[in-house]
């Protein structure tokens, strides 16, 4: 396993009226983050909030190209990114113990925080297709270039780690500075991760290590 210190490229926020960041996603233009009763779109160039949707937003956030997915209480809401309307909801696999959310390969991937699990879920029915075990509390989840990454947060320590989607084995680990929390993770498809800073109410951009 490769282990290194996370390289924080940029910090966004804290934002006025935002107490905590619970989930993060990226739609190709804006970084979206969940702040309890809102989804907010941040322009990554200026760092300001461009738009907000009033919707319950307690944990992970994801984007499938057209829709935003947002965990609230014990369900996952499918939201039209253009209108902000909740289209459908499915039960969340952790029954409310859910944390991170990602969309990849036609499935939703849901982190179950204290159970240290990641579930692959059918986005139409909410059916659990399979479950990957992790060793730490799972926060954010994201897929990039066929790599499965997730954020961890246990006690006062956080890191971002790449795991083998079959075995759950940790392949690579980026340690965040002590006292820095990861509450939501999304790749921009390139060499950046966006991660939520939990109660700090900010979002950080972290460099994704290059493959040699």
């Amino acid at each position, binding site marked *: 396993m490769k282990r290194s210190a996370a390289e924080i490229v940029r910090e966004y926020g804290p934002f006025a009226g935002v107490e905590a960041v619970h989930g993060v996603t990226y739609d190709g233009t804006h970084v979206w983050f969940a702040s309890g009763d809102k989804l907010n779109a941040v322009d990554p160039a200026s760092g300001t909030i461009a738009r907000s949707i009033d919707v319950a937003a*307690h944990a992970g956030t994801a984007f499938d190209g057209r829709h935003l997915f947002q965990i609230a*209480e014990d369900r996952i809401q499918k939201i039209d990114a253009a209108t902000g309307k909740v289209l459908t909801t499915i039960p969340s696999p952790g029954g409310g113990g859910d*944390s991170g959310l990602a969309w990849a390969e036609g499935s939703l991937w849901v982190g179950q925080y204290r159970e240290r699990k990641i579930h692959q879920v059918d986005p139409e029915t909410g059916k659990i297709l399979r479950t990957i075990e992790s060793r730490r509390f799972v926060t954010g989840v994201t897929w990039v270039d066929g790599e499965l990454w997730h954020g961890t947060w246990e006690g006062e320590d956080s890191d971002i780690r790449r795991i083998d989607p079959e075995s759950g084995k940790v392949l690579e680990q980026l340690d965040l500075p002590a006292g820095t929390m990861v509450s939501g993770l999304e790749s921009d498809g390139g060499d950046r991760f966006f991660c939520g800073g939990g109660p700090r109410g900010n979002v950080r951009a972290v460099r994704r290590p290059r493959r040699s």
Partner: protein
Amino acid sequence: MESLITAAARALEAGDPLGALNRVALRNDAPSLALRGIAMAQLGDLAKAKTLLRSAARAFGPREAVARARCVVAEAEIALVSRDLNWPVKTLAAARATLEKHGDLANAAHAGHIEARRLLLVGRLDEAERTLAELGAAPLPPASQVVRELVVAGIAIRRLRTKDARAALGRAARAAQLAGIAALTAEVESANLVLDTPAARLIARGKEHPLLLGQVEALAASKALVVDTFHHTVRKGGIVISFGTRPVLFALARPLAQAWPADVSREALMTAAFRARHVDESHRARLRVEIGRLRAKLKPLADVSATKQGFALSPRKTREVLVLARPVEEKHAAVLAFLSDGEPWSSSALALALGTSARSVQRALEELARSNKVQSFGHGRARRWMTPPVPGFPTGLLLPGPLLKT
């Protein structure tokens, strides 16, 4: 953090404990237990809250030291409000150190304030002051500022520093307004009442009138000879003669001061000092001895001269003799003074606060209960005593703010 915990924590913060319970009622993981504990505390079921917070502290993993410490602080506050003064202080100090070490300064300060409130309650004013000073003047959230100023005011009131108390209560009122918590505003208002309610009775030349705390304080600067039944002292200016260990001498000094400039008969003095119903020769002999002792002790401030009937006080260099007494003279005034804060007390906590034996507190409480001056609920060790509700110095439940925001 996870979804339902976030939703429940938000409900709690918005003052909706039932909404929070709805979301985590059936869950038994550590954050759910902590949330349920705080919700139950806010709903007033302190016993259940205590159990839940204790299980939460146990359930948090070894890496979650901060979360565990916050549970300990919440439990300590519940113990304080339930007047469980035997709650382990060391555990709270350790939790406070953990929070400080991990940079959770707001909750560390909250822990410090709980310590200071406990010390104030048991009358250890110097230590309470020291604990407050340790916390420094670091910027605190408004709700914590209210608590801090209430403790400062409490210490000032106990020390008879009315001006300081008023200033602290003024700051507390402003902070309470900022915090926007109605219960805190009410608490500051009722603390203000203490300053505007007679705190003592002044007896001079056979006449009585009530005194406010500020007026009691002013007496310290007056030239009068004061017989102080609160502290069992006779004082004038800076000279204080303590009768703490000589109750019989004090029992003689008081009627002499109350009658001044008139004298007091031997019979009356013997009744007051020896509680003797039938006075005989041995009592007269004893009175002579005790008056001799009193004369020696009072020498710097007054003389005790014999008259035809009995004895009279002759104060030196003053034309005023005052007796400072409790507003209502009660056999068990000290017990009532503690109970008048309106909170339920256990008899063992009262004994601890009064520095007397549990048995004598028990006897006092039973006597007071017979005259309907106190009431009790619960049985055995869980039994608690209260005065029928009167404005006092209540202690609200604030609980560590961002308990679950890790």
